[in-house]
């Protein structure tokens, strides 16, 4: 899809997040179409959450942001917009689901009020009582048993899975065009994860909302997302459909991630595969290709930043020495 097409919900261009002279995130471009589900994967410290917070305009005041983030239905750029204008965008055009349901709700407020408040805040329900009953409806839609009673409960009276459903209800309350999910199932019991994902995906689909899904759980991306962006060192190093990227990874980092997530494959010493080394601290990534100090294919020319290879920004990779296109990775 090309930038500015009618179906585009989110359009990110030249997004840079940094502290003083250290760049933490440098994303050239990515788009998300209406109703599309896009995964953003990478190790901890690769810049996934910073990218999400930059889209929300919720970065810490000490960080500098530049570039352009445009959202369908909003007539100004989200980067550099003041708090007053951003407050009208957040929760209405774009909403967020957080990682930790134990802390994402105010312990001193009833959950029904917390759901209702989001609607009152943006005037999508006229009265307090209308918002209350809409909140109970939302709680029912996210499959919380006995929603009337749950609306009157405090967060500590609900289980982790139920709380995450409440967080999802809050995010869906104003029918946003984009839902940013920051590892929404990482903190949940494995048995609950699938149900919560189902609620999230069906809730978003019912509203035509697009998903930007941040996770390091590749299995979750494979079930939820249509497209995937692989991030490392603050850069998007590979992009494409889930099918393409997961079966035919071209960037050595993506290949390493996939190999590491295969629990059947072992190396010569009988150990699970890993990516050698660790993610460097922010600001200590190498020049040129950010992955070259851990990359098995690294050569001298990797000191020059690799160009994007691919038909467009939604499909391709940034690497001088990609994994051969036909290689079957992780089973070797």
């Amino acid at each position: 899809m090309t930038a500015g097409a009618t179906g585009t919900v989110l359009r990110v261009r030249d997004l840079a997040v940094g502290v003083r002279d250290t760049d933490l995130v440098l994303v050239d471009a990515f788009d998300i179409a209406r109703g599309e589900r896009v995964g953003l994967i990478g190790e901890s410290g690769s810049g996934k959450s910073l990218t999400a917070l930059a889209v929300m305009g919720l970065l810490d005041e000490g960080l500098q942001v530049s570039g352009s983030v445009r959202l369908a239905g909003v007539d100004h750029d989200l980067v550099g917009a003041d708090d007053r204008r951003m407050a009208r965008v957040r929760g209405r055009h774009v909403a967020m689901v957080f990682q930790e349901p134990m802390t994402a709700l105010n312990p001193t407020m009833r959950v029904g009020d917390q759901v209702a408040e989001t609607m009152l805040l943006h005037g999508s329900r006229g009265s307090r009582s209308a918002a209350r009953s809409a909140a109970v409806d939302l709680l029912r839609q996210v499959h919380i048993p006995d929603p009337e009673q749950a609306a009157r409960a405090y967060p500590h009276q609900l289980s982790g899975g139920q709380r995450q459903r409440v967080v999802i209800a809050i995010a869906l309350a104003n029918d946003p065009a984009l839902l940013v999910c920051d590892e929404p199932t990482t903190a949940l019991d494995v048995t609950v994860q699938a149900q919560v994902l189902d609620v999230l995906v069906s809730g978003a689909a019912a509203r035509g909302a697009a998903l930007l899904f941040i996770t390091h759980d590749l299995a979750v991306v494979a079930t939820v997302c249509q497209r995937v962006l692989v991030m490392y060192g603050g850069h998007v190093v590979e992009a494409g459909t889930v099918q393409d990227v997961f079966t035919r990874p071209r960037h050595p980092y993506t290949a390493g991630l996939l190999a590491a997530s295969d629990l059947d494959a072992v190396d010569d010493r009988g150990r699970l595969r890993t990516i050698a080394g660790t993610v460097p601290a922010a600001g200590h990534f190498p020049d040129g290709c950010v992955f070259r100090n851990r990359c098995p294919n690294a050569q001298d020319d990797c000191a020059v930043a690799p160009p994007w290879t691919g038909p467009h920004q939604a499909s391709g990779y940034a690497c001088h020495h990609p994994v051969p296109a036909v290689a079957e990775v992780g089973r070797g």
Partner: protein
Amino acid sequence: MTAALAPAVARGWRRRRNPSLVVGAVLVALVVLTALVSFVWTPHDPTFVEASVRLRGPGSGYWLGTDKFGHDVVSQLMVGARTTLFVGVVAVSVAAVLGVPLGLLAGMAPRWTGELVMRLLDLLLAFPALLLAIMLGAAFGASTLTAMVAIGIATVPSFARITRSGTLQVMSTDYALAARAAGRRPSAVAVRHALPNVASLVIVQASVSFAIAILSEAALSFLGFGTPPPTPSWGRMLQESQELLFVAPRLALFPGIAIALAVLGFNLLGDGLRDRFDPRLEDQR
């Protein structure tokens, strides 16, 4: 402990006997009750000077005796309880009304504004409360109100600090971020989410400050900068008794005990409330 047990255990903690809360509440209730009763009944007119009964010992008619002017000590103590509570209420109100909003502001505002507010309050903190009260007393005349306002102003920094630390904590939580993600502005997050969460801290601070205010008023009255005659005040009763310390030590003893019990009561109440409200202490017991 398993997740299923956690709520039951939490309820158990809450029900657990909390002796400081009980003893503190009883002592405070005693002072409040005494003050209330003094509005409708005292054994004698507390300010009536009866020369014929000067320095009577305890006995029937005058349960705790009389002072050098012939005032009934019981009646003076009862009406003095009024002054004591009045002092505490106004001083704590002044401190909370100024301190809590300042603390909220310092906790939610951009870093430099918060720092500026707190450094200014540090200046105030460095200034002794009694000295401030004596200065205000000298400028505006010694009165209970002046003393109370001075003590209140001097207590503003502790309220602001406690509110700020609580606010900073809440503002860094996920639910504060979630509220921002839902479209709340920082000032609204502070009022809607931080304030209810710091309320328990403020209540505890209020009851401890109450005790300090009582002690300060007694000290000011003792120095002659607090409650002027003829309004009875425990501090001034102490002052008037000092020249008779060897003749009638009981005149110093009774108001001294009253002050000690009231201060003890509010301190214990503060401790008890903290044990009850502060979830972080729960696991340590």
